[in-house]
């Protein structure tokens, strides 16, 4: 009976995930998955009470109240612009919990575990610990607590390989000699590995990192399912592991890079500081930008991370409204890795009440740029850098980009000429038909709106 109830939870997860694949059904899908979770929680509690009513319920209740309260607070308080770091943190808590479940199993059995379960216990400990610490470094980078630039550690990849090998060896000792200490060493090394792997990864690669950690949190949960012999964990964990992996691959493809190269290679360089900022650009004022926009027929807005930083989503929408009132067609072109997590820009624009059918994918947007009068780039850089098409020496060569330079006029709203996270110069900025409007995205767009209204 209990098994069947867990099966129901698993089915609700699958139906829920299916719902999450279409905008119309997504909200219901999420609620169906939440219902599956509720079923699983009720089942486990009822099942345990049936076994023995005098268990440590105080601890369970305490954890549920504290954890539930923290989760509630975080979910209700978060700004949409801060969503990437919140998802990173939630990933970390999920992975950490799976590692703790495996750790509790080690304690409960004094590390005397049958070999097959011992292997999954080790995997749960190691993957869970990597997810926990890796996610919190990602959180720190996105929140600005940890430097979001690449931080190079001594030894680089070789150091990580040694730590990883050490964790595997320690886990092997734990499995074959029933040593709890060996398991703890493996867990500790994995926790260090999470830090040393994510720390060197630059902010622009965060969409890949967060997706991968999401996948890891699922795999850790599935492994914990093997540890305690529970099918609900195996099903839920496998689903999330698969979902995270699909997103990871899609993000990597969108950057034309392999997952190992993101995780283990040093990236960036190219132009030096002297190169940048010495070449002449067309500086524009709010009035120049307003005129270019107001006399256009078709405007495509290209948002990037700068829009999130400046919280400029509402300012973009207000400007778009003003243009639409003038009969101008406004669409949005979203690069798959714009922002700091997959779909980041879509969430922000949804918050500003932009209809989701106006948001165009890379494949939909590129054929339209030649017909666009203005491409308005707000806080994006690397995803519109033409050297990805033209310069085989560029670190981002081959990455699919939004071909904004096909538009008649390109307007770039940007704080300064500083390079993006890839650390490379952008030839787009020096084109004759590019107008550079320097400033904070929100302020710049608000000024532009005033200027448009005054025309």
């Amino acid at each position, binding site marked *: 009976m209990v098994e069947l109830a867990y099966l129901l*939870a698993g089915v609700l*997860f699958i139906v*829920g*995930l*299916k719902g*999450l*694949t279409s*905008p119309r059904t997504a909200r219901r899908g*999420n609620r169906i998955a939440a219902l599956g*979770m509720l079923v*699983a*929680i009720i089942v*486990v*509690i009822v099942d*345990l009470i049936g076994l023995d009513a005098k268990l*440590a319920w105080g*601890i*369970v209740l*305490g*954890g549920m109240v504290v*954890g539930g309260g*923290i989760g*509630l607070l975080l*979910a*209700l308080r978060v700004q949409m612009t801060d*969503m990437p770091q*919140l*998802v990173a943190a*939630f990933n970390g808590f*999920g992975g950490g*919990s799976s590692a*703790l479940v495996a750790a*509790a*199993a080690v304690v*409960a059995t004094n590390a005397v575990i049958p070999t*097959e379960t011992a292997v999954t216990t080790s995997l749960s400990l190691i993957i869970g610990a990597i997810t926990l610490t890796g996610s919190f470094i990602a959180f720190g980078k996105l929140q600005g607590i940890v430097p979001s630039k690449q931080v190079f550690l001594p030894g680089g990849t070789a150091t990580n390989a040694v730590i990883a090998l050490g964790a595997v060896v320690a886990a092997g000792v734990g499995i074959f000699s029933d040593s709890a200490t060996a398991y703890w060493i493996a867990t500790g090394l994995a926790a260090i590995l999470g830090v040393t792997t994510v720390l060197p990864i630059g902010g622009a690669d965060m969409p890949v990192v967060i997706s991968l950690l999401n996948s890891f*949190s699922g795999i850790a*949960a599935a492994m*914990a399912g*093997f540890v*305690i*012999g*529970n099918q609900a964990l*195996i*099903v839920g964990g496998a*689903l*999330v592991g*698969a*979902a995270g992996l*699909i997103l990871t691959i899609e993000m990597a493809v969108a950057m034309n890079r392999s997952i190992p190269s993101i995780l283990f290679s040093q990236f960036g360089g190219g132009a030096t500081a002297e190169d940048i900022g010495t070449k002449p650009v067309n500086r524009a004022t709010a009035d120049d930008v307003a005129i270019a926009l107001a006399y256009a027929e078709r405007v495509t807005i290209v948002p990037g991370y700068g829009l999130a930083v400046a919280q400029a989503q509402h300012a973009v929408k207000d400007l778009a409204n003003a243009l639409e009132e003038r009969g101008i067609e406004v669409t949005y072109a979203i690069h798959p890795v714009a922002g700091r*997590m*997959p779909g*980041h820009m879509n969430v922000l624009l*949804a918050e500003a*009440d932009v*209809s*989701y*059918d*106006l*948001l165009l994918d890379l494949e939909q947007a590129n054929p339209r740029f030649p017909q666009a009068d203005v491409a308005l780039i707000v806080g994006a850089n690397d995803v519109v850098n033409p050297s990805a098409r033209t310069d085989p020496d560029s670190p981002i060569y081959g990455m699919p980009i939004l071909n904004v330079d096909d538009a008649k006029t390109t307007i770039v709203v940007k704080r300064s000429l500083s390079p993006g996270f890839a650390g490379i110069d952008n030839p787009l900025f020096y084109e004759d038909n590019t107008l550079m409007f320097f400033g904070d995205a929100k302020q710049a767009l608000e000024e532009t709106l005033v200027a448009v209204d005054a025309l």
Partner: protein
Amino acid sequence: MSSEFIAGIVVFVLAAFVGFEVIAKVPRTLHTPLMSGANAISGITIVGAIIAAATGTGVLAAVLGFLAVTFAMINVVGGFLVTDRMLEMFKKIPGKR
């Protein structure tokens, strides 16, 4: 290998395939809510956490169990709630295009 363990592997592999099939064609617009919703599902480890917390004996087991339940609950409650908040905003505004 015990038959229970093998059954577990079967379930794992099949569930992973279902996951790939269901999610392979998600529109990019939904990537963030999908990730956040999937992340909440990985909080299913709450079941293991509750078992660990309820059945553990000794101080260390109690601490591990308490932390496991707390972490998993943050993931579950926060994950589903924030996904709902996000999806509430996704609208197709009629009359445009």
